């Protein structure tokens, strides 16, 4: 098919889950599980459409489609553009694919829910995924805002799903307040940009911003970063993340951590690397600072948690920091590593959260201090969890090794050694946190047995197995993935001029960068080994002793009050904006 025809299929990939969402509540009246089956069908349709577009895009071309045929006139675009560049398409494929797996998991685990609940659940999941796919593929600031808000509203309903748990409503309120403020930031920023540059299209904006920037442009940039940072869970905008991921149902937490935080990262990447690329702003420095702080703070908070899902949520904060550090190096290896880590994080974090959700669902226990001995009574789950932990730890042959190695080499190549050491420190703490979790949940012997029998149903087995296999696969054949996915994505991000031109000309190519990952690099192997050893020691130390003072202070700062979290977020907004204006 021609490029134009392929491009015109892109909006259908967004419309398919939306149609499924409209049908699901009605289908649920016939039979509750029918709603999930329709959502699975819709997501697989979307995935198929995206895969049809994949060879052209990952070969280095950008598929652009102007909706309704309203092409740009004399360089100014009124119509909405859908531009599938490798970065966006990778994220869209990830969303659709993992979304389908999650629906399959829900079908087997939560299939016993009532008809109304399940219909609403399926509809909201599809709306969320449609929002994510739309935001990844769009090339228009207003459209990005609209899909951002669609995903946000769907997430509000999904957070407060299990009404019988008191944390659910509380977490729903917190995510509401913080994400609404984030929406304002993005909205205001898009309007400011339109006011000064007169453009809503990415390509048009990128060419228009090559001139010297005015104050309003910098303000807009700051607000964009703040708004998308809230969605991504960067410090100090992360107050909602831990609570929302704890209170949401198992597959929904996996969806949030694995896919929805990526929405913020996609937004940040687009704004900082592709729209503002020609301007001289300290955006990369700001992102590096935010990323490193998030990585450290997330890891430290994860070390002291008692609730398993809350621990994993803080680990998400940490990993998002790592991804942003990778993207902020502006170095081919680093950016490719950041994109790779995005894919990997989606895989292993989904795996871990599905395991945690299964534990909560089957045993009714949420706190690590009450769990234990699951390795013996539930070996399948223990293996899956182990694979996830090994992936985060960056142990070969799993996929974390590859992406972390790429980010490290990117940092070394660009000579940024302070972030490098801090990132290594964060990795050690992360390994300690997850090691402690694995010990307490699985290996620690438990005196009494659980009330329910634990076993894995077929849908669960399939989902968990697929994810674990992908973790292994992405770690074992990094060359292929780099070649096909990560490098094109990095090229699209770093070659922003070509991207902008492609968007305005309804199609174009991007020259490919090539990064090489030396698998048996002794430095990387040494880092992996050393971090595992140190992490294990730290975990052993944490299990024996009391919590050190610094961490207690950190815990006290996260006091659960909405006002305080909002205060931190607003302080963050002001700091980011000031960093740009000064």
């Amino acid at each position, binding site marked *: 098919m021609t490029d134009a025809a392929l491009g*015109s299929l892109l*909006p*259908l990939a967004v419309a398919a889950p*939306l*149609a499924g*969402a*409209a*049908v699901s*509540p*009605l289908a649920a*009246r016939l039979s509750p599980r029918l709603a999930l089956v329709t959502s699975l069908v819709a997501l697989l349709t979307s995935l198929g459409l995206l895969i049809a577009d994949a060879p052209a895009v990952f070969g280095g071309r950008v598929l652009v*489609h102007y*909706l*309704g*045929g309203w092409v740009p*006139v004399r*360089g*100014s*675009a*009124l*119509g*909405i553009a859908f531009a599938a560049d490798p970065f966006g398409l990778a994220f869209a494929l990830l969303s659709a694919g993992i979304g389908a797996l999650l629906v399959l998991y829900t079908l087997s685990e939560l299939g*016993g829910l*009532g*008809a*109304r609940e399940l219909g*609403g*659940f399926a*509809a*909201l999941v599809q*709306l969320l995924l449609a929002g994510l796919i739309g935001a990844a593929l769009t090339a228009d600031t*207003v*459209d990005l805002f609209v899909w951002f808000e*669609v995903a946000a*509203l769907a997430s509000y*309903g999904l957070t*407060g*799903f299990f*009404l*019988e*748990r*008191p*944390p659910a409503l509380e977490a*729903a309120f917190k995510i509401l307040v913080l994400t609404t403020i984030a929406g304002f930031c993005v909205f205001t920023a898009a309007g400011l940009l339109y*006011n*000064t540059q*007169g*453009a809503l299209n990415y390509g048009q904006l990128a060419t228009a911003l090559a001139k010297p920037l*005015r*104050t*309003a442009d910098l*303000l807009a940039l700051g607000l964009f970063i703040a708004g998308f940072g809230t969605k991504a869970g960067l410090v100090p905008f992360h107050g909602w993340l831990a609570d929302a991921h704890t209170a949401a149902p198992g597959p929904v937490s996996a969806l949030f951590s694995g896919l929805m935080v990526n929405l913020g990262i996609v937004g940040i990447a687009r704004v900082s690397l592709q729209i503002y690329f020609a301007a001289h702003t300290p955006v990369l420095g700001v992102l590096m600072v935010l990323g490193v702080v998030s990585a450290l703070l997330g890891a430290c908070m994860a070390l002291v948690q008692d609730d398993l899902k809350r621990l994993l949520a803080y680990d998400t904060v940490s990993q998002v920091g790592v991804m942003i550090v990778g993207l902020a190096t502006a170095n081919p290896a680093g950016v490719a590593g950041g994109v790779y880590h995005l894919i990997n994080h989606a895989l292993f974090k989904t795996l871990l959260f599905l395991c945690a959700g299964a*534990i*909560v669902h089957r045993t*009714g*226990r*949420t706190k690590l201090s009450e769990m234990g001995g699951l390795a013996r009574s539930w070996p399948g789950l223990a293996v899956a969890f182990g694979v996830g932990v090994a992936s985060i730890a960056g142990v070969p042959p799993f996929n974390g090794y590859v992406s972390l190695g790429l980010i490290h080499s990117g940092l070394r190549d660009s000579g940024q050694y302070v972030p490098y050491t801090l990132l290594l420190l964060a990795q050690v703490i992360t390994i300690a946190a997850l090691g402690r979790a694995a010990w307490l949940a699985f290996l620690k012997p438990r005196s009494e047995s659980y009330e*329910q029998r634990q076993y894995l149903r077929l849908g669960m087995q399939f989902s968990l197995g697929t994810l674990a296999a992908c973790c292994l696969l992405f770690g074992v054949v990094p060359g292929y993935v780099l070649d096909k996915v990560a490098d094109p994505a990095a090229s699209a991000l770093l070659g922003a001029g070509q991207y902008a031109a492609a968007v305005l000309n309804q199609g174009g190519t991007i020259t490919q960068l090539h990064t090489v990952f030396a698998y048996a690099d002794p430095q990387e192997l040494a880092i992996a080994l050393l971090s595992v050893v140190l992490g294990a020691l730290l975990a052993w130390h944490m299990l024996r002793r009391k919590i050190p003072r610094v961490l207690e202070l950190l815990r006290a700062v996260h006091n659960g009050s909405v006002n305080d979290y909002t205060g931190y977020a607003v302080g963050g907004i*002001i700091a980011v*904006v000031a960093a740009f204006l000064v």
Partner: protein
Amino acid sequence: MVLTIGYLRLLREHAGLPAVARQAMEVALPQWKLSEPVNEVVYGTRGFDTFGETFLLLAAVISVILITRPREPRRGYFGEEAAGRREREEVDPHSGHDRDQEQAREAEKEEAGEPDDAVGGVRSHRRPETPDAEPVGSPAPERAHAMSVVVRTAVRVAAPVLAIAGFYLVAWGYSPGGGFPGGAVMLGVALLVYAGFGRQRIAPVIRPGLLEAIEMSGAGLIIAAEALGLLLKGSFSANWLHLAQTGTILSGGVAQLFSFGELIEVGTGLTIAVFAVLGMSHDWTPDDGEDQDDRGGGGSGSGSGSESGSSSSSSSSSGSSSGTSSGSSSGSGPDSGSSSSSSSGSSSHSASGSTA
């Protein structure tokens, strides 16, 4: 500190109209044969934004439905329920009844204890149909279902006018395409009739099942309108209908169809949301405190009695048959939360949130 943000907003430009806007008016407008650029931009050229926003509203309505849903039977073991029970006991430790909570519990019990149509009832008050029989100036709260004859007559006159006005907004207005405001007006009509006539008169029409079906079909209509553009014209949201003369009801092709679908979806969606909140029943967390009161201050071992069916008198919707519901109305805020819903909540019983 906060004003730093405020001050920063002052820096703006005073410039000419951007080229994009010119294009909207000079190029696109004649092509759509509409007369109003804002409309044309919303539903036509940038129709995909509005498309996304329609589903945003759908997401909001479904979220509200989920949050306000009544409890349903589930199959299989759900660990979340056990976890929820344990967490509730941690949160609500039955000690220390402070005044606000006492007041809230009293109010809820009082409102729940009034059955709809029974003669007698808990306090041997029968709820009259209209307050016309009561003397003027009798103390609050009104116990009637509907409002006085003055209000009812006014509603009878006003509601059809408003309904036609809403349709006019969509059909003609300044130029075709006022889906959102039309939907809001429909909601206003529904609320007016509800306030004037009471829940019983409106229950046959405002049923969640029916409204949800209509809303989903509105959403489906919108998807179909946009997608057919793909099939027939090669691009999503392209115009594939015949463009009639400017200023008539059918001008604007797909834009008008979109706007009509929008009216259906927004109107029914907002109505569902509002009536769902009004009809929320309290059957998720049974009131352990009331069990304690009834049994004369037992210990904290109310976990065994906290099954949904056997909870205290405030929630019995799971046991009641379809049709009437005695679910308590939305929590009459104990403290100063002077929400406007409390006025309507005290004078009318909650709308039925019954299962389809």
